[in-house]
């Protein structure tokens, strides 16, 4: 039944060389090395690398100057790699040698094929010049512990398990399961607690988290009898021996929701425990769902962290199930615009907070200048903001303004700099938080941005990974390892894939102070609206038109790696 573990995805497939390039390569022992003397690099953002043959030379196409009908303003000047003659593309085919290089852009051009061609060693040579001229330093990239991938074994109960199942368990009512998916159950609103219900529904259906609890990985009956962990600040044992563990309460909710009972469940104990543990957030009022989400994950972490060593390893996700599922690593690069020196830091993150693209709004305003009153009714005319655009904005190089001048270690003074974010490691479940509540600078109040956000059901995060962002920064040249800092390996291999599927959308409707949260769940390709106690089936279009506030995506493919204990396989 076991199949060989799938091979890690191939790195960017390089097109095979044209025959002319191939023969050029074979004629030299180390092709392109000699070019390094001529390659000139500029600080990032200031222009592509170029070739300079002689500091005083004025390269020009001899054929153009001597002909009676010169090519008007040739866009490129090429230099032959074999004899260094310079010419323009239209006169290239008459040249005896095949491979030339674009002087201004350091790209290879095959005169016989009349097309730009690509070579890994050439790109390597170009980038080495970059690296020598503009080094990058970084804090040590967090080491991802390499775990070998293992086959997925279906679990089969052994005889003692089978006996237990037969004698100590009750089968779920079949009728209840066959008509509607498992785990669909309304949650009662206990008084302004829709922010809790909406996030709980998303958590209940996050596959890795769901699997963890349904596989009995945190048994609430065993937890209560266990001695409290050393780090005891939140596991308060109270006056009458109450045991406070949010993971236990979550375990209870999982059991209840997947029990087959379809009457709405009241997560009262959960609320009680959460308020006991997070006293600062305990009040009878509407609260922010995203804040609640962060708070719950933090509390679960506190409850489940047993080893003091692992508690600092959030990025690895080894500390607790909350981080194992939701924690990723962000990379931040700050580049001095003056000298090109780049400083890199890594930080763990549990979700991605995205700004709603404001350029969409300003463009819209500009177009409808005078027609102020009609703007609200003309939403259909302008293109909606999309999640992809928000992500592009997130990973775009941003010029830091004057107040945030970065101290460049090379220049030894504060310089204007560019900052660029990217994702070094993707989590198993990606949670996007759409920043709909912003401070209005004019009124000094919080206001809600109502604009609709288009989001895909299938999402490929590859363009936002550090490896991709880094590569595009270097003109999409194939990065040698020295510049890559392990990004390609980490970004893709540890999560195996950058492709995600949506499974839950938490939406907010209404005003800032009087609004309502509702969660849309995608189960077996059908969408269900979970509005507190009400679970209703809805069309895709309803979900697409809703005001997404939090979006939950899960990796399409999950791989298993060997756990610390060899008998337990754990999802990466």
């Amino acid at each position: 039944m076991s199949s060989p573990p799938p091979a890690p995805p191939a790195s960017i497939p390089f097109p095979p060389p044209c025959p002319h390039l191939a023969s050029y390569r074979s004629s030299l022992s180390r092709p392109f090395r000699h070019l390094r003397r001529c390659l000139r690099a500029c600080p990032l953002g200031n222009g592509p690398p170029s070739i300079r043959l002689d500091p005083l030379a004025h390269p020009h196409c001899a054929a153009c100057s001597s002909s009676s009908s010169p090519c008007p303003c040739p866009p490129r000047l090429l230099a032959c790699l074999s004899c260094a003659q310079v010419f323009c593309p239209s006169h290239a085919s008459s040249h005896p040698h095949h491979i030339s290089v674009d002087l201004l852009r350091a790209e290879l051009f095959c005169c016989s094929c009349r097309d730009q061609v690509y070579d890994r060693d050439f790109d390597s040579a170009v980038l080495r010049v970059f690296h020598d001229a503009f080094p990058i330093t970084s804090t040590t990239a967090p080491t991802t512990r390499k775990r070998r991938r293992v086959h997925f074994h279906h679990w089969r109960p052994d005889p003692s398990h089978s006996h237990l199942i037969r004698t100590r368990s009750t089968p779920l009512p079949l009728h209840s399961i066959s008509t509607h998916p498992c785990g669909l159950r309304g949650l009662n609103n206990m008084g302004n607690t829709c922010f809790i219900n909406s996030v709980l529904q998303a958590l209940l259906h996050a596959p890795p988290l769901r699997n963890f609890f349904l596989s009995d990985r945190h048994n609430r009956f065993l937890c209560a009898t266990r001695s409290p962990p050393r780090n005891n600040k939140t596991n308060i044992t109270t006056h009458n021996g109450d045991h406070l563990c949010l993971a236990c309460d979550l375990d209870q909710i999982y059991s209840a929701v997947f029990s087959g009972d379809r009457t709405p469940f009241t997560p009262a104990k959960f609320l009680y425990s959460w308020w006991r543990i997070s006293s600062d957030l305990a009040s009878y009022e509407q609260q922010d769902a995203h804040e609640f989400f962060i708070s719950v994950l933090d509390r679960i972490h506190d409850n489940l962290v047993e080893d003091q060593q692992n508690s600092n390893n959030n990025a690895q996700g080894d500390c607790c199930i909350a981080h194992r599922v939701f924690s990723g690593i962000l990379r931040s690069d700050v580049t001095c615009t003056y000298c090109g020196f780049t400083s890199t830091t890594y930080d763990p993150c549990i979700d991605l907070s995205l700004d709603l693209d404001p350029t969409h709004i300003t463009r819209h305003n500009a177009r409808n200048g005078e027609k102020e009153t009609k703007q609200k009714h003309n939403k259909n005319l302008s293109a909606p903001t999309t999640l992809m655009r928000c992500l592009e904005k997130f990973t775009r190089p941003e010029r830091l303004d004057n107040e945030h001048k970065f101290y460049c270690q090379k220049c030894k003074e504060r310089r204007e700099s560019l900052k660029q974010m990217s994702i070094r490691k993707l989590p198993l479940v990606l949670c996007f938080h759409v920043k709909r509540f912003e401070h209005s600078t004019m009124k000094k109040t919080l206001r809600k941005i109502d604009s609709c956000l288009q989001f895909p059901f299938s999402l490929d995060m590859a363009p936002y990974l550090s490896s991709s962002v880094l590569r595009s920064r270097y003109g999409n040249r194939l990065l040698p390892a020295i510049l890559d800092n392990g990004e390609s390996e980490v970004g893709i291999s540890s999560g195996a894939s950058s492709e995600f599927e949506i499974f839950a959308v938490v939406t907010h409707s209404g005003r800032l102070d009087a609004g309502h949260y509702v969660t849309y769940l995608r189960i077996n390709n059908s969408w269900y609206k979970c509005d507190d106690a009400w679970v209703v089936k809805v069309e895709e279009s309803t979900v697409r038109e809703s005001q997404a506030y939090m979006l939950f995506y899960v990796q399409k493919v999950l791989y298993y790696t060997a756990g610390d204990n060899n008998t337990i396989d754990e999802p990466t």
Partner: protein
Amino acid sequence: MSISNSNDGSLTPRSQHASNCFDDLLNSIIADVASECHRIARLGLDRSLEAEEEELRLSQPSDSTRGGAGGADGSSKHGVDIFGNSHPAVASETFECMNCGRPIVAGRFAPHLEKCMGKGRNARTKTTRSSTVTRSRHSRGSPVSVYAPYSRTPNGSTSGISEDLSDNNFEEH
């Protein structure tokens, strides 16, 4: 494409030079973009545009007016859910409060708990939270870290605070 300064259409040598310079720069920029796009396409780095366009097309808003708090599904609150059940506006299930032991209606559990635990902006004892525990006769709450001693007195009845804990009687201060 030529820039003319004189009205009769002929070009001065100077404007011709300027024009040539401009064309040179423009061509160079176009070639830059072409070269980059060529590389991206050749190395297979371009994202699938068809999938994106499909997603965008699917999310084009329909002509029906959008949003309001309930939207088109607001009616579901008056109908039935997928299990064929209907639910009241305020959840009517009752259970025992794990703090004080009283039976509470689910839909009003949060406001009850807030008072019961002495939390929230209306809790009386916010001021005593950081100081040492002072318990007055009518103190209905207590500092966070101490379990509220609402448990029944040995003879089974609560002390004189019971009437203050009624849900309908919101605040006395």
